[in-house]
């Protein structure tokens, strides 16, 4: 059974979807019971499980249950305090004060203090972390006046809103008493992390499973409910679906089961398809242009290509309805930042052809205007399928497209270092604030080799200026307005086209409760997840 019919979901912004989901009364009257082993499907075995160094969803999926951030996203309040009880940015933007929770211990019994936060911020987030290196670039020092207060000091004014929005993803706190003086790149901690979280790392059987067990010292009374979480390595999507059916596994996250199987699984008694709980980690599908290619440097051609693509078709056919058409780089689930007051390029092949003629690329004798090479990102079925669709869509307006495929490593090198592409299909992640991983797709002047960033050859002083304002405007309302301008300019210049926003889908057995109950559910701590005894 589904929580809501698919057609109903599609018509609503995901925010409403989310609140509708959590208020679903089906399980509301049930009281949590403790015990049981939750078995979830897993397909990757990250080489480094340390979430403070590798801020990525594959790592969080496992280690967010062991190592906690300062705060987690929440449907009702925006942010739910975890290791920090409250926080406040100074008016000058030069400091950010964190009031930490008292009485928290590491799973080895040592007390958690502000020294741990200072160590993590200065030596890990700022120095080592793939995302933190940018956000905490201007972090100068962390003062620890007492055990429960940590004050981040910045050398340049830094918006409190940005730090706040970054808390869930980039502030996993590491134990200073275990790691100080260690070589953070080589330490065995990275394979078996220790944290304050609801679960403790127990074992990794390579190729088979990870096992986490209940943290008896967890600070939240009575939680976690589960005795164990086992991540079973099940690489094949078909096998995952079968394992859900037999009850060998309880949960698959991150759309690990093909979308085409969702309807069949949903029809199985005891299994539900749950399309929520990922709003904080929305993925987007983009069509990236290489502006170095003469035709694509022309804004008219880019607009024409945008007009040639039917976003609704993509949503219906590639995503089977589990996506929304994009109006710009910010997803509508990000209520604060989102604006739909942007230039639109509705599906209109006649207009596309008109623009291409106007740009000076008429159809040749064979009906073709010019040819392009398209590299779809190889990691999602949906990125590859979108590539196939774009090829067809552009053929209809006289642009011949050749699909070039590579494996992930090859794709990254070709697009982001060698710029050896004309068109690319990308899947950038929305991480809760435009400054974390969205504006970098429009930032000019980056070195070649910076991945998931503007390697398109687009460099607009006006855009660079807006992006700079975004990370220096301290007033939250004013900063939010800056990002509305950002969306407008992004759609006007159209250096890349945001085609769809999609969030992943969880498929879970009905006995598992409190599934998808926060916007980063799969990458959150699961302290309140429990298994109902009789189903």
């Amino acid at each position, binding site marked *: 059974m589904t929580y809501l019919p698919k057609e109903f979901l599609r018509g609503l912004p995901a925010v409403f979807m989310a609140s509708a989901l959590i208020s679903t009364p089906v399980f509301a009257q049930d009281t949590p019971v403790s015990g049981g082993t939750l078995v979830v499907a897993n397909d990757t075995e990250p080489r480094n499980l340390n979430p403070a160094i590798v801020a990525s969803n594959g*790592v969080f999926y496992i280690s967010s249950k062991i190592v906690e951030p300062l705060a987690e996203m929440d449907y009702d309040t925006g942010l739910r305090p975890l290791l920090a009880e409250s926080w406040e940015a100074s008016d000058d933007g030069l400091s950010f004060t964190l009031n930490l929770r008292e009485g928290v211990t590491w799973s080895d019994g040592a007390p958690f203090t502000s020294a741990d936060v200072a160590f993590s911020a200065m030596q890990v987030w700022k120095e080592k972390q793939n995302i933190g290196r940018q956000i905490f670039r201007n972090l100068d020092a962390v003062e620890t006046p007492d055990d429960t207060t940590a004050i981040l000091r910045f050398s340049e004014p830094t918006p409190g809103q940005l730090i706040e929005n970054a808390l869930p993803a980039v502030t996993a706190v590491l134990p200073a008493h275990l790691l100080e003086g260690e070589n953070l790149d080589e330490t065995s901690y990275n394979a078996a992390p220790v944290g304050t979280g609801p679960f403790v790392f127990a074992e990794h059987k390579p190729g088979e499973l990870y096992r986490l067990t209940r943290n008896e010292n967890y600070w939240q009374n009575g939680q976690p409910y589960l005795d164990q979480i086992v991540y079973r390595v099940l690489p094949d999507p078909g096998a995952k679906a079968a394992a859900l059916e037999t009850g060998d596994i309880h949960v698959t996250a991150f759309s690990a089961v093909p979308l085409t199987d969702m309807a069949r699984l949903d029809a199985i008694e005891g299994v539900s398809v749950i399309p929520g709980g990922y709003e904080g980690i929305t993925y987007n599908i983009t069509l990236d242009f290489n502006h170095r290619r003469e035709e694509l440097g022309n804004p008219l051609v880019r607009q024409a290509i945008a007009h040639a693509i039917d976003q609704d078709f993509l949503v219906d056919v590639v995503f089977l309805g589990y996506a929304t058409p994009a109006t710009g780089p910010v997803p509508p689930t990000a209520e604060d930042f989102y604006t739909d007051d942007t230039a639109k390029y509705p599906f209109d092949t006649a207009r596309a052809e008109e623009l291409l003629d106007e740009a000076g690329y008429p159809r040749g004798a064979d009906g073709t205007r010019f040819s392009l090479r398209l590299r779809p990102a190889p990691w999602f079925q949906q990125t590859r399928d979108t590539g196939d669709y774009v090829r067809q869509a552009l053929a209809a307006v006289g642009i011949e497209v050749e699909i070039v495929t*590579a494996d992930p490593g090859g794709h990254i090198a070709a697009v982001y270092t060698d710029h050896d592409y004309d068109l690319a299909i990308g899947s950038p992640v929305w991480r809760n604030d435009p400054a974390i991983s969205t504006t970098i797709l429009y930032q000019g002047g980056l070195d070649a080799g910076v991945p998931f960033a503007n390697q398109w050859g687009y460099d607009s002083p006006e855009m660079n200026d807006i992006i700079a304002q975004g990370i220096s405007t301290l007033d939250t309302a004013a900063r939010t307005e800056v990002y509305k301008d950002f969306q407008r300019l992004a759609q006007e210049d159209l250096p890349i086209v945001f085609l769809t926003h999609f969030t992943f889908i969880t498929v879970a057995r009905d006995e598992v409760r409190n599934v998808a109950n926060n916007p980063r559910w799969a990458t959150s701590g699961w302290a309140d997840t429990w298994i109902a005894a009789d189903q």
Partner: protein
Amino acid sequence: MPEAKSKVSPSRAARFAVFLFQRVVQAIPVLILVAIGVFGLLELAEGDAVDAYLAGIGAGDAGLAAELRDRYGLGDGLGSRFLTYSTRLVQFDLGYSIAFSRDVSTVILERLPNTLLMMISAILLSASIGVILGGIAAMRKGGPLDAGITFGALILNATPGFWLGLLGIILFAVKLRWLPIGGLSTLDADYGPVRATLDVARHLVLPVFTLALTYLALYVRLMRGAMIEVGESGWVLAARARGVPERQVVLRHIGRPALLPVVTMIGLQSGTLLGGSVVIETVFSIPGLGALAFEAVSQRDLQLLAGILLAGTLLVVFVNIIVDLAYGLLDPRVRLGAGEIA
């Protein structure tokens, strides 16, 4: 070249030692070629280990990429990287797998037993069924049984392994619930040694049969062809003329020599042993070397890939020595000795 050259016939053990030594020496140029090939191919592939890693973690900056390249030793020039790589190999130092953050030897040894268990069972099962069915088909040449066996084996051969595997899962694991869905052992089962062994065997039934059925056609066709051919040879005619019972003619005079090509094929297939079957390993969630090799390539993990290929080459050499020994047992005309079996 039969015994002509021998003045003093060396002892069996000494001859065997020389034979082994020759085999190992023969393997050296192969190993060198393989080692250079691995390096060259990974070098030709777009992107390096850092690109593959960044693709996995989804974000990074130029500074991070440079630091990682430094740490992985990818910042050096081509020549010095090749030197480091080949020096290590010569010293049999398999090195460190950057994709798994563990020693290459550890990573390979974790998976070697699973792959060997699965592939040896599958090849032997496939060869045994193939020999029996091929033999029956040859004896009933042209009859409906022959046509049925040949046709069935070809259909199985043409069926993709993953599809056969998934069908097996749906029928035996999901519908009938007789067999487990995948993996190598039951989660959290606390079994004694006997039950634990049976548990692993139960988990291997589906993958081993899936693999065996896809290889089956090969052995059926080989055995059938060989038996028909041998059946026309002079010694079979002679044996029948001597009045040897038909059953003995078929088993000893036709069947035994007809096994030679089958054994050769087992030797050749040993090459695929270590490669395992990426597809079957994936479908049945078995941590094996096939999937590992695939991961090594996609992560551009040179040390790991070299280690896997090295292990594979050694295994092929080893299996082929056994195959040569088996020839001697099957065909009395074959004598093991230096220079005789090349």
